[in-house]
């Protein structure tokens, strides 16, 4: 009996403890911090709404909006590129399927930072793109908008997060019963109509979760915008990181992080609510 209780604890209580220590407690701490303030480099525990009022100002609302906009670009681009890849892998490839899937996953094993730096080498004024264009005589001066811009951040984030979109989409597309496509063909459905009225709606759950897997980390990205965005492309993640770093504004940083989380939760809720195919139990 005793053994059974300890087994129970190990199996069921341990994960809960883990969640409590590493997730719930830090969250509670953040929540508390967000209502405190800093006076003379000391965090003072007096209740104030000033941090949240500050976020309501046009500066931070603007950063939030541009972060959302950029994350939507990243998500949409990832979907436009990732859907055909997932579709191809799931429904067209027979041989080398595992190898190709591995190639999709492979970049995930490279450090996030390395991949970001790689884009600096590609897009910089001395980078591959500028050198090549100048070598071809298409431009006379290095194009500076390539790096330190929304463009650079978007491209890098698409590259970094797209595998997270391809994998769930692949899983959903592969599960679609081939006899449904045969039935659509039998009833006279051409390729495009079969795709639009059968495959696309049935892959909706994959689209929803894949998009979330790209949108959420993009919203929170801070290293990539920091390195590739320069001063022209500022995302909320970088600002939050600054609050916990040089600015030493834990309370304001906590408030920003909580607002960001609120936006993410709301997006996730909407995606999961509308990302179900019709007729699902």
């Amino acid at each position, binding site marked *: 009996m005793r053994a059974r209780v300890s087994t129970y604890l190990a199996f069921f209580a341990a994960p809960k403890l883990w969640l409590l220590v590493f997730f719930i407690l830090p969250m509670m701490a953040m929540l508390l911090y967000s209502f405190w303030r800093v006076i003379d480099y000391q965090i003072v525990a007096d209740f104030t709404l000033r941090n949240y009022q500050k976020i309501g100002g046009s500066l931070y609302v603007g950063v939030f909006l541009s972060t959302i906009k950029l994350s939507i670009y990243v998500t949409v681009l990832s979907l436009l590129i990732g859907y055909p890849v997932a579709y191809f892998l799931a429904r067209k490839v027979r041989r080398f399927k595992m190898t190709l899937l591995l190639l999709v996953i492979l970049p995930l094993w490279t450090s996030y930072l390395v991949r970001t730096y790689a884009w600096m080498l590609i897009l910089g004024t001395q980078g591959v793109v500028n050198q090549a264009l100048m070598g071809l005589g298409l431009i006379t001066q290095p194009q500076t908008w390539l790096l330190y811009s929304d463009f650079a951040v978007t491209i890098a984030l698409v590259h970094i997060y797209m595998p997270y979109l391809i994998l769930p989409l692949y899983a959903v597309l592969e599960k679609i019963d081939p006899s449904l496509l045969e039935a659509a063909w039998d009833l006279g459905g*051409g390729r495009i109509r079969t795709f639009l009225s059968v495959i696309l709606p*049935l892959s909706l759950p994959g689209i929803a979760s894949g998009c979330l897997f790209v949108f959420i980390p993009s919203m929170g990205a801070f290293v990539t915008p920091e390195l590739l965005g320069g001063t022209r492309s500022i995302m909320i993640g970088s600002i939050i990181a600054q609050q916990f770093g040089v600015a030493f504004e834990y309370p304001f940083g906590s408030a920003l992080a909580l607002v960001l989380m609120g936006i993410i939760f709301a997006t996730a809720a909407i995606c999961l609510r509308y990302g179900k195919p019709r007729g699902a139990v």
Partner: protein
Amino acid sequence: MLHYRGSSRVMNQIDVELQSVVKRFGSFTAVDGIDLAVQCGQFVTLLGPSGCGKTTTLRMIGGLELPDSGRILVGGEPLATDGGASRPTRMVFQNYALFPHMTVAENVAFGLRMQKVPKAEIETRVKDIVALLGLTAHIEKFPRQMSGGQQQRVALARALVTRPRVLLLDEPLGALDLKMRKHMQHELKKLQREVGITFVYVTHDQEEAMNLSDTIVVMDHGLIVQQGSAAEIYQNPVNAYVADFIGEANLLSGVFRDGAGDRATAISPLGVLGGRLPESYRPSAGDHVLFSIRPEHVLIGQNTASLDFNKQGTLTEVAYLGGSSRLTLAVGDTTLRADVPGLFTAPAGEVVMFGWQAENVRILRHDARFTTPVA
């Protein structure tokens, strides 16, 4: 009343024709050169065990597989290979293949939308077919909210609403429980009479085939072994495979002695037996043959004395099946099954007289798959 393409045509016209059709998958020959002509308005069943080529044949008629050689004509015209909404056949799939994200109405309307039928007409045609199949109450439901039998009817409605010339059905009742299957068999037959179009049906269930079909096409190893009505096939199987597959048969090994016309005699473990030969089989003396005797033709009791053949045997098993009793008899090394009407009261172990008329014995080509040890 519903109007189906071709429903006004003469009934003895050929709707589906296969000419030396071959289909291979890699090194496996699924269909090994078959010829088949299906008359307009018939219920034809392709029957055989899994791997006999029946489903491949059906899928080729439906255009879902292309033959490696040979020709397929539907309505006298070669089958178009490019699909398209105007194809003359529609398929009812084994797992129904209903679109899970569409309601019954949307599923049924799918083919009509692909044919670009005007909206108002789609609505009335969907309503009519749904009513015909008794689904009106479920029209707004999704497939997952329905029972297997209901889903089956939706699949039928979805195919029939497009008014195909030929309806192809791939083991459509396979996933249903026995009671539902019996019920749907009855409904299918009724439906086929109502819509009057050609049904080509695939099953491995001989009882289902006998129940439904105007013509049964028995297939084995990619070939058509025999075709005809249920009665023809049951009464005059061309070989042991058909005798064994359609209904039950006691198959005994033997050696051919002599024959005149379709009357013949051969030596069996039970002695010399008279029987009849199928039209296509004329063995010569000394050939190995198989006797086929249906269990209901094995008679038991004192009155067997006047039969063409009679002998004593030991009852080893008696099972009461309701309408009849199934007896198992041992005669030397030979085991025989016999069906007698009603409740049979003698216990196992008793020695009984049994016998049969030579009229009911078939002498068939030897087939190693059905050989019983010769005593």
